[in-house]
């Protein structure tokens, strides 16, 4: 065969082989395409949807907090925010020029400008950057007029927590603030991860955060590879937070705040003796919770923390003071239980000798012959020294604890402290020392180791005058468990286990403290009314200032003088014949209980009764809510 012929035959054969190979390759690729698009299609469809669709959380509006009558204590207000979209402002250069123009229209700090420029360089150009928050209406309208010259500038409306009563309610309501790392880790609610989301950090805001928070809505949006939102596909609205109604009475709270104005540090608690509903809970000085929700500056925070009067502490539940003579009722009840009758008679010469130590009565020249009722009425220390020596500290402690002292009362408010009721065992365990009899004497007049909170004094007094029910305090009008809210069921409080006859003696004595001829609070009788109040004064000695404290900077003479004064206490109730309300007052370094605390208690109880009178007429005239509301004196519960 000619070479040329062979060559072309070989070529044709091999070319055919090649084309065959090419077709096979194409066939292979076709098979691969079939595998991807038919066999594996479902998997890739899902992946494509995951790519394409983003879920965005829609924060629910936070529930309001109201007082018992529906007065708003915490609301959400519109927060006008100035946001800038860099890509609409011609990017970096444009942003700087726009900020310059903005600074002529509204207040813009150097700090803000720097922050915005920094964020502009870091984020994608379509992400809005917040330039300023909390614009005033005037600023908003000024910006609105100039919109054409401000490309990329938008006014965004968000919501900020607002507390209309400010400092007056701060300790009860608390405040909201940004979520901390720890809180984020502890919860699986995706809302917490939203930038700028705020949760309750204190008070009711913290206690009932879940109920107030609501649940998140979702919005499904289509996004591109850069994360820019193309359009919204679906939207599911969330559940707004529940409204939380408190047992608190705003008018009473306000009145007390006003009444305590001239005091430096004080606390007042008003409670329904039967239900435990807190009607007022005041601690001064206070702070402005709005500053927290708007974002507190470091120096403001430092100022609050370093303030010597501790504005951040809720003294009503976390202030622990020696109860002084207010403790004497518990001692008397312990005495009655252990066989010391009301007629137990002690002669008070102004002091009592125990071994080589002399224990003084507050009345230098003595009260003379005292029995249980007159010892309480006149607050004779010697009678209680004697009784305490006879029954010992452990019996006193047992009785005090039955009345709610020495442990947290369980009020629905965070930060409560338990106080301290000492026993022999306690001293051995914590100090490693044996108990001295002299210490029992001191405990007998509510001094020494014993510490109580103002709330505990209110609760223990309530238990003494309500017929011996172990009432517990609460602030929420309804039963709130997590995010569910139900009508509050009447709490069947257990009995404290003290005979009614014993309680009657105590009530008789407390009545005399105010209404008796020699009562320590006889100057603080209720005025302009035919009802009376009962109570007990207390004056708690404050430990002396040490040299160390003097060195630590307390040079101001006034301050030292104030710090050296005794705490003034008073626990009282009204009406004396059928107690419904209990009040506990403490004025830090206020001097004597009868002069500083009792008048405040009197004023507060007068106001409580006045408000109650109005409520009765309101209820009768308007909605007539709650059966028998108009007939019987209004129960503090169920009026909502």
């Amino acid at each position, binding site marked *: 065969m000619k*070479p*040329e012929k*062979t*060559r*072309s035959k*070989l*070529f*044709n054969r*091999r*070319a*055919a082989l*090649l*084309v065959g190979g*090419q*077709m096979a*390759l*194409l066939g292979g*690729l*076709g098979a*691969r*395409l*079939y595998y*991807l*698009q*038919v066999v*594996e*299609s479902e*998997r*890739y*469809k899902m*992946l*494509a*949807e995951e*790519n*394409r669709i983003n879920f965005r959380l829609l924060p629910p509006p936070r529930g309001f907090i109201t007082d018992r009558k529906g007065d708003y204590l915490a609301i959400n207000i519109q927060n006008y925010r100035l946001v800038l979209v860099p890509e609409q402002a011609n990017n970096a250069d444009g942003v700087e020029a726009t900020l310059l123009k903005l600074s002529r229209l509204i207040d813009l700090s150097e700090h803000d400008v720097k922050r915005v420029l920094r964020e502009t360089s870091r984020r994608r150009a379509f992400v809005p950057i917040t330039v300023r928050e909390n614009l005033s209406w005037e600023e908003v309208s000024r910006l609105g007029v100039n919109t054409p010259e401000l490309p990329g500038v938008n006014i965004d409306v968000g919501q900020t927590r607002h507390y209309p009563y400010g400092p007056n309610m701060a300790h009860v309501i608390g405040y909201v603030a940004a979520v901390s790392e720890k809180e984020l880790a502890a919860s699986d609610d995706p809302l917490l991860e939203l930038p700028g989301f705020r949760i309750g950090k204190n008070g009711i805001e913290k206690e009932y955060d879940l109920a107030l928070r609501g649940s998140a809505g979702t919005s499904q949006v*289509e*996004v*591109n*590879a*850069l994360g820019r939102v*193309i359009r919204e596909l679906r939207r599911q609205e969330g559940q707004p937070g529940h409204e939380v109604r408190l047992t608190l009475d705003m008018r009473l709270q306000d009145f007390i705040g006003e009444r305590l104005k001239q005091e430096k540090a004080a606390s007042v608690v008003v409670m329904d003796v039967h239900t435990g509903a807190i009607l007022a809970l005041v601690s001064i000085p206070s702070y402005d919770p709005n500053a927290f929700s708007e974002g507190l500056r470091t120096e403001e925070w430092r100022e609050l923390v370093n303030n010597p009067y501790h504005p951040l502490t809720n003294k009503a539940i976390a202030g622990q003071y020696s109860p002084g003579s207010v403790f004497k009722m518990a001692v008397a009840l312990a005495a009655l239980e252990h066989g010391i009758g009301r007629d137990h008679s002690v002669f008070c010469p102004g002091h009592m000798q125990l071994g080589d130590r002399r224990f003084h009565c507050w009345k230098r020249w003595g009260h003379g012959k005292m029995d249980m009722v007159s010892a309480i009425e006149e607050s004779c220390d010697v009678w209680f020294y004697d009784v305490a020596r006879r029954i010992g500290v452990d019996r006193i402690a047992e009785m005090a604890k039955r009345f709610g002292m020495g442990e947290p009362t369980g009020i629905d408010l965070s930060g409560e402290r338990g106080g301290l009721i000492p026993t022999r065992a306690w001293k051995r365990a914590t100090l490693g020392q044996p108990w001295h009899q002299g210490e029992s004497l001191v405990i007998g007049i509510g001094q020494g180791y014993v510490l109580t909170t103002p709330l505990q004094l209110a609760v223990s007094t309530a238990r003494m005058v309500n017929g011996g029910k172990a009432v517990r305090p609460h602030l929420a009008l309804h039963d709130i468990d997590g995010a569910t809210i139900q009508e509050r069921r009447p709490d069947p409080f257990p009995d404290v286990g003290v005979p009614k006859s014993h309680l009657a003696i105590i009530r008789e004595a407390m009545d005399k403290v105010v209404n008796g001829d020699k009562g320590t609070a006889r100057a603080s009788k209720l005025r302009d009314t035919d009802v009376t109040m009962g109570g007990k004064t207390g004056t708690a000695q404050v430990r002396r200032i040490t040299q160390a404290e003097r060195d630590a900077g307390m040079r101001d003479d006034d301050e030292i003088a104030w710090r050296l004064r005794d705490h003034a206490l008073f626990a009282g109730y009204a009406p004396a014949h059928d107690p419904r309300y209990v009040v506990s007052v403490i004025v830090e370094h206020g001097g004597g209980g009868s002069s500083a605390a009792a008048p405040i208690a009197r004023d507060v109880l007068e106001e409580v009764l006045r408000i109650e009178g109005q409520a009765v007429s309101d209820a009768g005239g308007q909605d007539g809510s709650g059966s028998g509301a108009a007939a019987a004196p209004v129960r503090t519960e169920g009026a909502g």
Partner: protein
Amino acid sequence: MRVRHGELRAPELTLGQKIWQLNWGLFLLVAAATGVGLAMLYSAANGSWDPWASRHAVRFGMGVAVMLAVALIDIRFWMRYAYAIYAAALILLVAVEVAGTIGMGAQRWIDLRFFQLQPSEIMKIALVLALARYFHTLNFEDIGRLSYLITPALMVGAPVVLILRQPDLGTALMLAAGSAVLFFLAGVRLWKFVVAGAGALGSIPIAWNFLHEYQKKRVLTFLDPEQDPLGSGYHILQSKIAMGSGGMTGKGFIRGTQSHLNFLPEKQTDFIFTMLAEEFGLVGGLALMALYAAIMIYGFAIAVRARSQFARLVGMGVTTTFSLYVFINIAMVMGVIPVVGVPLPLISYGGTAMLTVMIGFGLLMNVYVHRDVRIGRRWSDHG
């Protein structure tokens, strides 16, 4: 002019006859593929002729003119200047190599204002011409002798090494593969390919050291693209998601979510097949592959009908180059081979590849027009 072998020579064709002889069937197939390309580029721009489809059309128009010019020039001209064209392409390759070393980084093209001339693309055509001429002139008996294979091996080796240095792995591999096909068609014995293949495999560990870091990474991510879904494997993974989610019939024209939300990279160039498969599904993908198959078979039919070895080799050479574009691109977007920057011919946006491919089709038509022209061993034989 004397007739050397005393055979009857086909009469010389006039220009009019040549135009009549042009293969319009092939032209229709090429135009159809370009039409698909225009539609996809229109979709890639979210339903707009700008910026890609309109310019693609203009380039195609210019490409058609070039194709016709190449087709109508006498085949003996291409034979005569085959080595000169090869030499010119080699000089250009060296030039960009030098400019690249002096200038900034890996520059692969020479800016000619309308086109960015990539010497490596020109070389794809030039090498086909040069090898075709070499094997045409070689005595068939000599092809079995190893010493005669040294020259063509060097002709392939020089540009491949230069292009590897650029570095452009994809083009170098294409050149090597295309050349191997020409060796095979010229009659080189199969066992020599086996030996050469074994040698190439043996040198992979050594070659590995010469690869740039990004090339190594490409090969490694190819082996397991889903390992690093946000890094280098991202492109392949997103491409597979796009195709897979297209399903049997696709998401519809301009409705490919992966493409239009920019999850798919380079959708107007290297990944345009993915976009087609996403929007028109398996049906669309297979249809385009069938169109390509038709073009390849057409090329084969033209080549085997030619009387001269030069024409046959050129015909199969350009067809093979074209099919290599198709295979590498489609295999890449499906995740079968590593990501190498090879466009889909006639469809991907880009000037240089279009020019190469249209010159290739011009040569294929040239072969068809001049199928009966006999060419002597030496071009001088025909004066």
